[in-house]
């Protein structure tokens, strides 16, 4: 167990540490911030951490860029990094962009409908709306009983 906390362990897994730090930063922002735009920024950081995770995963130590030379004379001793995670994460980045733009579009619409993008204000406006609905319903039911 002592071995777990040596310098080698910490530096050898540096990409995972950074991944965890980024991920938790993003998640914390999403949870703690009330401003919807800040939430989107947090979500982006959170997603970026996964991109970093995948990209660092594809690295083979001593490996070079996985592009064959044009003359196709491939040296069998050359190590190449794994290109597949990069391709995968390209897809995930596109998904991330779509999510961000959709979230921003929703924020614009929320701003137009509510006049605010602060979560606390939104919650109180919605609370008011549902109280109105409930009291209207109560008035209706009580009015009939009377």
């Amino acid at each position, binding site marked *: 167990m002592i071995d777990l906390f040596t310098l080698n362990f910490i530096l050898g897994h540096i990409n995972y540490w950074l991944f965890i730090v980024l991920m938790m930063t993003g998640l914390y922002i999403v949870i703690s911030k009330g401003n919807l735009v800040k939430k989107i920024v947090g979500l982006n950081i959170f997603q970026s951490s996964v991109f970093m995770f995948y990209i660092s995963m594809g690295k083979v130590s001593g490996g070079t860029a996985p592009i064959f030379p*044009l003359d196709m004379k491939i040296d069998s001793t050359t190590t190449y990094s794994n290109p597949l995670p990069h391709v995968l994460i*390209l897809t995930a980045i596109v998904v991330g962009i779509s999510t961000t733009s959709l979230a921003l*579009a929703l924020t614009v619409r929320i701003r137009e409908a509510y006049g605010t993008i602060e979560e606390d204000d939104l919650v109180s406006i919605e609370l008011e709306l549902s109280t109105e609905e409930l009291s209207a319903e109560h008035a209706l039911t009580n009015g009939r009983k009377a």
Partner: protein
Amino acid sequence: MRHHLILRVITKLLVGAMMLFAFYVQFHGDYSPGGGFQAGVIMAVAFIIYGIVFDLDHVQRVLPPWIAHKMLAIGVLLYSGTGIVSFFQGLNFLDYTAFSPHHPVHGQHYGIFAVELGVGITVTGVMVSIYYAFAGRTSEIRDEDW
């Protein structure tokens, strides 16, 4: 940005070069790093910077929003159409051999070319549409009040 003379002149010079570079990245994508995603974004940036420096109206005269919307759909159709071509050769979906049954390597080449073209058109359409959607909203704050 009517009073930024330098920006206006430089933009006019650059937009053409950017579009040219987008085409280079698009059509050279199967030999060197690049492809539909990058080319589409570069192409869209040419339109967007024109829209930012001059005016939304100006850029929409060049590329009306409805064309941007159709582009986004046509690219996807081009992509799936490429896949369907293989059906007629008795091959599986997206099997590029269908484009040149006697020389499969060329088939790969043509296939990826068509698919990347579809991706490029869609990405251009999407990026420009997103820009139009956000920029086209009437702002509640006037420029002078910033």
